[in-house]
């Protein structure tokens, strides 16, 4: 018979893991890069949630964002450009007991991997996704990305980007099956951590867009928001963010938003100024693809033998088939 793989894993003792247990190689991102803030939040999250490093996988594609797995001391899968989602889905399907995170960028997710992104939202597998959105291609040295602002001068758009930027939040909220959509910013680490924790705890595809500074190629892009807290609107709710007193006094622009309300979520997602930060949408009841498909079953050889023989029976001509004797001579 079949049974789930996670049922077969015996925890002999609960181990406690410190922050160091998750710290891999020294990050080679630029000084001041927002990726460092995301990495710090993830290491803290793994430690606080006490995730066994051997049961945790960070999957990524290609780009600055996708170096993150190298700096974790868990399992990591640094694959190919744009394909982090299907790789992560395959891992989750084979091993639903693993904690699977996806680290992707605005090029990796919203451009070359856009088809996979849309369908990953649909599948709603239990994955925690951080979209490192710095509005620019960094690893290949300053080309416009789908989220670059119009007019942005880059090596491929020397006269300014011609198109309006894509809004990953509204796109995500337009997909049937989406179950957790949030936005964070690298310069408010406390909120970034809280959102990532909520994302991890949500059972389903948790998509967090993290606005992230690129000091090298987009140095001033987020300055207005850094200088004026009023331009950031924090979404609060008893089922969402709960702000510390310190944060509340700095970021006074707050809005109560129930993350189950998708229509309101879509409205908020469209805002450009102020930008919303918090959990826009969360539906804890959306079914996960791996559950619908009964992932992670273990099969005994006898079970496979029986199934195979059942199929072969349908196509078998037996030597003692009585029809043999009835054969027309």
């Amino acid at each position: 018979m079949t049974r789930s793989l996670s049922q077969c894993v015996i925890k002999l003792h609960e181990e406690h893991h410190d922050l160091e247990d998750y710290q891999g190689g020294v990050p080679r991102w630029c000084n001041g890069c927002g990726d460092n803030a995301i990495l710090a939040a993830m290491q803290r999250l793994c430690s606080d949630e006490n995730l066994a490093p051997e049961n945790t996988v960070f999957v990524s594609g290609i780009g600055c964002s996708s170096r993150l797995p190298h700096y974790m001391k868990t399992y990591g899968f640094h694959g190919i450009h744009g394909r982090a989602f299907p790789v992560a889905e395959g891992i989750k399907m084979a091993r639903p007991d693993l904690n699977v995170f996806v680290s992707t960028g605005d090029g990796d997710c919203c451009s070359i991997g856009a088809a996979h992104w849309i369908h990953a939202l649909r599948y709603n597998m239990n994955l925690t996704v951080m979209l490192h959105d710095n509005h620019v291609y960094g690893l290949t040295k300053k080309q416009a990305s789908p989220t670059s602002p119009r007019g942005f001068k880059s090596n491929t758009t020397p006269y300014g980007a011609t198109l309006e930027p894509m809004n990953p939040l509204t796109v995500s909220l337009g997909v049937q099956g989406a179950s957790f959509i949030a936005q964070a910013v690298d310069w408010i680490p406390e909120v970034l951590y809280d959102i990532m924790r909520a994302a991890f705890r949500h059972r389903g595809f948790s998509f967090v867009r993290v606005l992230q500074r690129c000091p090298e190629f987009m140095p001033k892009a987020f300055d207005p928001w850094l200088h004026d807290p009023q331009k950031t609107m924090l979404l609060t709710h008893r089922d969402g963010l709960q702000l510390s007193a310190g944060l509340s006094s700095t970021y006074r622009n707050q809005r109560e938003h129930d993350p189950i309300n998708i229509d309101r979520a879509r409205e908020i997602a469209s805002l450009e100024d102020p930008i919303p930060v918090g959990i826009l949408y969360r539906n804890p009841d959306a079914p996960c693809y791996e559950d619908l498909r009964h992932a992670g079953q273990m099969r005994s050889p006898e079970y496979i033998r029986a199934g195979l023989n059942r199929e072969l029976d349908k196509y078998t001509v037996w030597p003692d088939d009585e029809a043999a004797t009835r054969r027309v001579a």
Partner: protein
Amino acid sequence: MNDTLTLTPPAATRTPRPAQPIAEHIVEVISDSGEGAQRCGQSLAAIAARMGNGIWTTEIIPAEIQPPARSVAGASGIRIRIGSERVTNGGDQTDLVVAFNEQVLIGRVQADELKPGATILLESMWSEHRDAAIVASYAKTVAALKRDGFKVYEVPLEARCKELVSDPRKGKNMFVLGILCNLYGLDAALAREQIARIFGKKDAKVITSNVALYEAGAAWAEANLDFKYRIPAQRSNQAQVVINGNTAVALGVMASGMDICAMYPITPATSVSHYLSEVFEKVGGLVHQAEDEIAACAFAIGASYAGKCAVTVTSGPGYSLKQEAIGLAVMAEIPLVVVNVQRGGPSTGQPTKVEQGDALAAIFGSHGDAPKVVMAPCSIEDCFYSVITARKIAETFGMVVVVLSDASLSTAQQPFPRPEFSEDWLAPPVDQTPVPAGGKPYDWDPVTGLSRRFQPGQPGGMHTLTGLAHDRASKVAYDPTINEEGLRARSLKLAALQKTLKAPPVFGGNDGDLLLVGWGSTMGAIEEAVTRLRAEGLAVSSMHLRFLQPMPSGIREILKRFKYVMTIEGNWSDKPEDELIDEDNRRYSALAMMLRSRFLVDIDCWSEARGQPIKPGDICRVARDALQLKGKTS
């Protein structure tokens, strides 16, 4: 009912027909698309196989799903070759054809698919059609066919079926099955069983009415046709299964113990996934229809990385799309089975037609040096076992194994001994034991290049797998010596596998004047040609490769024993007679090119890429010409 069109007198005035014994016959049932000719032919083949006859079916498929009715290019149907002995290919020309209209028949005649003097059973209703143009076309065709020496029998198919069912267009395929079973003396009880099986999912009324159609057809043939055949059958004392190549691949996936198949719909591979979707979940497996071919491959890679080796099933264009992901699996040494049911290419090419055009893409595909294992099943039985072997090699060597089936194998039915399941076929459980301190995820063996892979869940094995060049610890390496160490290890694994492969057997004689070399689905046709040529006294043999990469040892010695070697392949090669083609620019067929470069032997090739299975008669002609040419020059 108006029977004036039938040429034979009523049954009452005739004595029972004696059955003429024959060794084999090639039968075709052709129609417009959607008239059930294929179901009729598949059933005929299954019944004959159950009686112990050798069979091979070849589907005749128009490229369009619904080509215009009554069109020369729209011929849809099936060829069934029935023999006393084992049948390994579709043969040359048809002995008897049942045609549902004269236009599709013209298509087959023009393609030279009918034997001179072949018997034709032609639906006669067109002679009374209200459209005068159709009546004229029908009469003209019948007259022309008779003039050309064909034996034409006009059969009131729909007219007779109308007496039994309301929609005779849908039912006449079973009427035809009745005619054919009567003509070849096939067992009526087996036929009824077969009908019950194909309509098993529908209600009993459907089965009853189709059995009635079958019986009416048989009775009509008994009463109206003046000939009958008997193809002696020899029942095997072993249980046999009768399936096509795609079903065999799907059953192979089940039998290999793989858990996950990720795919995207593509002709002619899709029926593997159709069948697998129906049965795989019942044994705890899973078919994932991904959003595209790239995702299907990446999904399989992710599943394989964290669990047992996974499989992705595709055809030409999908295979092209998967290249980058395949390169990742090669670089990261993730086991992966890729089944490519080849079709005509490049680009969209000929989606429903056979071609062996992907050998070089399979061997060399993906940028950089990306060594992969490439296997080519050469019979239906092989389709089943290849997948099991592929899974095992993939997992043992941490490699990508490409299985090159093709459109011909995909739909061809052939009986083979029923596989007896063995636990050795299955993948071992996923290794979750702790990794000893200091263990490295790519601890390449200096001789074989092999290393033990670490999988998520294994304590102490944590590392970041990467498509970047990496060292033994999976750390990104830009150091030139480290890059070469990885390239060497991945390449050595092919050599390690190669050392385990046996030399391919030689069919015919151990030495001689001409050796034909083939791979994949052409084996049956090539070996039949060799048998015929040897019967003519020619010293011709053949060798068939199941492994294209790596190539087994011993081939060099075999090649030396023959004066002349040529490959026979279903792909493109430049024709030496073309004005611009000379020895310096001629592009050889895939296998010929591989053999020439590896063994430095002057190997010729003959190939065709007409989208049809290669026929034994054509191979005979090519071989005779080659021997004659060689005789003149030497």
